């Protein structure tokens, strides 16, 4: 298999060291503190379950924005690489939603898992939990 051929030393530049290092700093600084606290973590999960995809604005109430901690968390979870990323597949319109795994490239096959949910919101929340668990595993935190 052909890979991007090395034409010099394996420098930090080639491995995008700058990005990945600052990304790691940001996660430890801004995301993990809320996740380390089981009470706060449970609150974030409950908040997400209530409005996993957001909600319409209504007169007389402020817009239904997520809390700052939840925003930081879901924005970070949403930008994990496409390869192996969870997605939702409509198996029966308006009745059944499967969890799929993206191939991360065109021409690949979207894998459909056995996991099923009754609503798109339930599937969205389930994916949030999968991604949260993966992030916590990456940093050695017990879920």
């Amino acid at each position: 298999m052909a890979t991007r051929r090395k034409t010099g030393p394996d420098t930090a530049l080639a491995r995008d060291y700058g990005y990945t290092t600052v990304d790691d700093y940001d996660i430890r600084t801004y995301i993990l503190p809320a996740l380390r606290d089981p009470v706060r973590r449970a609150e974030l999960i409950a908040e997400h379950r209530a409005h996993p995809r957001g909600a319409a604005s209504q007169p007389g109430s402020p817009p239904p924005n997520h809390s700052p901690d939840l925003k930081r968390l879901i924005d970070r979870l949403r930008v994990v690489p496409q390869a192996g990323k969870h997605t939702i597949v409509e198996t029966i319109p308006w009745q059944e939603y499967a969890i799929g795994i993206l191939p991360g490239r065109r021409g690949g096959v979207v894998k459909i898992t056995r996991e099923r949910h009754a609503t798109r919101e339930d599937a969205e929340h389930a994916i949030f939990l999968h991604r949260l668990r993966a992030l916590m595993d990456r940093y050695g935190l017990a879920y």
Partner: protein
Amino acid sequence: MTTQQMMLRITGYTDRCSVRPGDEIGFHVHSEFEEPYQVDIVRLIHGDTNPEGPGFKEKVVRTPVNGRYRGQHQPVHAGSYLMVPADSRLDVESFTLCAYAYPTTPTVDCEYVPVGMQALLTKWNAKTDTGYGLFINEAGELTLRIGRGRRRLVEYSTRKPLFRKVWYRVGASYDATSGEVRIWQIPHVTITNGGHGMSMLHPHEDTAASVRYRSSLGPPRATDAPFLMAASTLVPKSGRSVQGAHYAQLAAPVELPEHTHKYNGRIERPRVANRALSAAEVELLLAASSVQQLPGELREAIVGAWDFSANIAENAASTHIVDAGPHGLHGIAVNMPVRGVTGFNWSSDYMSFRHAPQEYGAIHFHDESVDDARWEPSFRLKIPASMKSGVYAARLRVNGSSDPDCEDYIPFFVRPPADGPTAKIAFVVAMHSYLAYANDNLSVNSVIAQLLTGQVPLLQPGDLLLNKERGYGLGTYTSYRDGWGVNISSRLRPILNMRPKYIHVLSPSLWQFNADLHLVDWLFEMGYDVDILVDEDVQREGVALLKQYPVVLTGHHPEYMSEQQMQAYHDYQHQGGRFMYLAANGFYWICQPHPDNPNIVEVRKGDNGTRAWTISPGEYCNAFDGKHGGLWRVRGRVMSKLLGVTFTAFGLTYSSYYRRAPDSELPECRWMFKGIGRNEPIGNFGLVGGGAAGLELDRYDLELGTPHRAYLLAHSEGHSDMFVSVTEESTFNARGIIPGSLGDNNPRTRADIVYYKTPNDGAVFSVGSMSWCGSLSHNGYDNNVSRLMKNALDGFLKPGPLP
């Protein structure tokens, strides 16, 4: 349930999209598993299957084509290339092949997926291993192949990798008498010529090479394969031909090969000589912009010397490839490679190929591009005289099943008969915008899509097929696998996000075609007669077509407009037309149809605008008309001059509602609000994000051309923090700054409903929101969005001056 069971098994496209009674329209259908299918022509009324709305509505129309058909598997041969038909003068024994080349995926694509062998200049039959060709091998090295058939082939490489986004002089020669092979790749780097590629190429030796070999195989065997650039031949005759439309220059059909070894990158000044040239001769040959400048001895050796700058003076749309050599071995471009792009000698002194064609002599090839699927026709429908103007589709069902993976709809649009309108209202279908968004494949490919929408994408059976088929040529919201934005989109292929029942990645529910059926449904249910027109009708017939109608409506997102369309709407408003813009972010991007084929459009996204990609340096001008591409506002035609409002913010998420503004109580305006309370929120309901103000929002702005006598009837408020400002108004980003900032706590994040009068009793009514039409059906069509629409439309239909 496996992916294969979920994936769409049948699809297709039409040969035209706008037809009149008496016209014929051809349908091209692909069956994934060659299964029989049932066809029914249906009139589409409402495409939204959401149980909270009125539900899916279609009416079967009895036509002679309704019936059962045998399924045929029809692949798409994607990937752009140039073809010179087989000619014995190209069956050389000794030879030199050379060109400038700018590879963009020398080994892997932007997802780090290996690309494999790529062909630059070949007369090579990949099935029989005969002929010769200059390639880039799997390791990214320039490679010469010589083949004598039955796996008797030799390969000689430079043993050095080519770098991405670097111009090279590349070539190889073979002397049949001595058996000597030479192959070279010499970087040709200037400060400007690599676009955003590097210009400090040091050490040079990492990629420069010139190598000699000795071959004992003998000369290449002649092959019936055509001479291809950016591909090689898998099968010399594919059964698919080109002539007419964007091949208007061809007097007779030319049969295409099935091609392989598809190349991503640019080629310029390709040359073939019938002997092994010296290094000095190659240098002369590549440096000369005209063959006439060359010494006679060298000229006599030339078999072909193609000049891509030769026919781009006015536009760079032609598929004719000029051979400036002695034999006139002209070629054709297949699958619309990109012309009007900067070449190896681009100095940055010019920003348009029209000003300096000699610096734009390159062509950029992409292995996923498609100009026309060229499928066999499956059936043809003659539009019956009784067919009322409307939105229709051929409904295809594998074995008659309505399961989502077995059912597809191929939409088409019936306009009124040639003898005149059949209604006072025209709805112009935004086909150019549907084409721009065609087959975006963002659900699978885009990281940012989840941030823009605040949700995980939902994949339907068509999305699964689309990803397997690599987007069927993709659309202008996607990048090719070499990272270049897709700037050309064709309708002559299945467009799987232009379907009823489709849920779109860029919305909590619907977008584009299916969302526009919300309006079709409301007009139908409210009993209005409407004529359906399509962008290309306005493009071709201009204001003469529009002015036959007292009222013209848009759908929810007519974002992409050609110059001819902009002019037609301008003239319509000045000549007394009454225009209802039921949308946001309309008339935004410059979009130009191909001069010879309205089914293919081009979009170049410049440095400015809320955009999916940015064009490369120096390439702002459309190939299709030679004029500056990008935003209409950079050409002085900001949308608010025609619509009264300008794109201000977007949030591809849940929606909000409007509040009435004081102008709505003026005598000139209050007739539109009959039955709506002064303090009543408008549109806090709907099928697109639960509100009438959503997705994308427009505001009035007197500095940007909103007419001085415009009335502000209502504005939205309370949009969530998923909304953001448009990038074209961002100069500095700063926390707390209003323009260019986030959407919440920002008074520019709002949709404005604006109304103004135009000369000769004309008028414009703009809603400034993309989710407006999704609220029309709420509560059995009895709601204040529906009421305001009906009041405005009924008022616009009344002859004589407006209040």
